[in-house]
């Protein structure tokens, strides 16, 4: 019988001299808690579910250890704890007090200037991730958090990260690659591993900014369901006319190239993307 993750979190807190706060998030592979250090500093404690593979956790931890950037969540510690005779992996990360980008846009979309400023910092993050030969593969509003309320965006959750310097470990028979389909590029949706590189993150970031600013997916046509949109991306249709017009109108024309159908149509290097993004203001 496995222990409840809440109990595991309390065991971790007891063993580390931390004060248990509350549950703040839950995903398919992890549960996240707010905990406090003796000095009163808030940390995020992530307890990995038993069903999550050891490889997946190791990949996430390795990737986070490779990264050191102000717009990427800091991994403070990773270890395991025994609870009810079973071993649970846990991670301690910096706590993001500002909530997620998904929460930020629940009531109001980002203004073009806000989107530009957030985009600039997130491009810096994917530039750093790419320099480590990593691809995040799951950029989406829920995986972008703020250190303070609606400022200092930070990329979190490297659970689907791919290390390009290593052989792929995902199964070749998957018809859809890992990631959140709505934000994924064609190569990721088609599990076309040979084409996946940092430009897959560029595509996802382009979709994230479009959704958060224009309220639409770049490939969306009137009356489309989310599934229709994903299908348009997977079959390599072209971005919609409304998106192209509106992204230009709000002064963010770079978005159109970020969501190019083929990686070759997007910005070739992170530095080129950064320069083009800066030039919009």
């Amino acid at each position: 019988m496995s222990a409840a993750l809440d109990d595991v979190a309390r065991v971790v807190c007891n063993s580390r001299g931390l004060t248990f706060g509350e549950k703040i998030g839950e995903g398919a592979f992890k549960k996240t808690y707010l905990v406090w250090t003796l000095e009163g500093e808030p940390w995020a404690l992530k307890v990995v579910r038993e069903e999550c593979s050891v490889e997946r956790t190791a990949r996430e931890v390795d990737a986070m250890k490779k990264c050191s950037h102000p717009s990427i969540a800091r991994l403070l510690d990773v270890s395991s704890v025994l609870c009810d005779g079973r071993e649970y992996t846990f991670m301690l990360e910096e706590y993001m007090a500002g909530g997620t980008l998904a929460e930020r846009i629940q009531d109001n979309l980002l203004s073009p200037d806000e989107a530009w400023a957030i985009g600039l910092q997130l491009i810096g993050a994917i530039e750093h991730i790419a320099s480590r030969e990593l691809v995040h593969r799951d950029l989406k509003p829920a995986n972008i958090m703020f250190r303070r309320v609606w400022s200092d965006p930070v990329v979190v959750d490297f659970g689907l990260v791919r290390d390009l310097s290593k052989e792929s470990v995902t199964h070749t028979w998957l018809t859809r690659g890992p990631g959140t389909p709505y934000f994924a590029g064609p190569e990721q949706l088609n599990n076309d591993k040979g084409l996946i590189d940092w430009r897959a993150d560029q595509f996802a970031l382009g979709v994230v900014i479009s959704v958060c600013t224009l309220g639409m997916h770049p490939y969306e046509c009137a009356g489309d369901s989310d599934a229709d949109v994903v299908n348009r991306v997977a079959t390599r249709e072209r971005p919609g006319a409304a998106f192209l017009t509106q992204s230009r109108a709000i002064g963010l024309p770079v978005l159109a190239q970020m969501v190019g159908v083929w990686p070759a149509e997007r910005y070739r290097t992170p530095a080129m993307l950064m320069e083009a993004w800066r030039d919009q203001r």
Partner: protein
Amino acid sequence: MASYHQMGHHSENLMREPNLQGFAGAILSPVNYSEEEIASQIESFRHRPYFDTVFDPQLYYPRSERGKLPTWGYFPSSVDSLDIQSDSWWRALVDRLVESCTRLRPDGVCSPAFVPRSFSDGYFSGMVKLCDYLVSGMEISQTRAIQTLLVNLPDLADPGRAMRIASIVTRTKASSVYLVIVSNSEPRREFWDVEELKGALKLIDSLEKSGLPVLVGFSSSDMVLWKFAGAASCATGKFFNLRRFTSSRFEEPSVGGTPMAYWFEESLMAFLRESDVIRVRQAGGLSEASIKNPYGQEILECIDNARGQAWIGLGWRQWMYAFADLEKRIGHNAIDVGQLLRHADEAWLALDDANILTEERQNNGAWVRAWRRAIIEYPAMR
């Protein structure tokens, strides 16, 4: 925007000709020259301002005709016995190539590349990694590393193939691409498959738009297509009025008669034999550019004087001059490729109407229509 001279056997003499100074660079080949000879060529070019020397290590078919290649320090003695597709073998070769180029100091060096049995995604990824290794090896030198990209023209007929290749190759750490289009077309025959050409144009267009200038090597009159797609530069050699990049390009014909002299006629975008030149000229079909070509004038004098003088050498020069001249006019927007091909298409029809037929049955201008279709249709490709 520039023309490069694809150096071949004894072609360094052409570089000194006053009327062939329209080339902005040279692709140097180790097949016909020793390292000492190439060093001497590079030194002589160094005195020319803004002249770009690019060394192509020529390992496309390392087990076939090699000329002087085996005398070069980087050429491996194990080429016939080992698995030449292993990474370590190629990396060791790059290390030796870096040593050679550090001594030679050309302005650029193309990454080594072989013609594979299958042009798979893995092959292209491997070639990019190899070039990245060369980039790091040449980092402290003044010589820039160039990504060599060999593509199989028939593969490009497959929709999406060009964009897949571009998506892989644009990962290169090099800042430009040396494109070699491999085909099984016969010597003296133009590329004519519309779908293949559309793929090639899409590939060039895509690489250029991603910020990687493309130098198309081993070009012939098809240069106008590559320029239309945005290729920064194209290279040709004296034999490229006759041959294409096929394995046989490196082999002299084992049988066959005397080489023929050819005239490049811009109004038809075709290579003509002497009797064709005479008849087209009589019909008033020679272009102004051909008539103004200084070597063209010499050829016409030979023909007019009826001395029976062979003009093969002049034919090479006429082609080289025409290539650089046409490339320059396209680059300066003095000529529109669409219009050029449209006029050529019309000129072939006019010849047919006048019952003027060329000596070679297949030299009928049919490719011009295919080229026109290719440049019209490729922008809509996905």
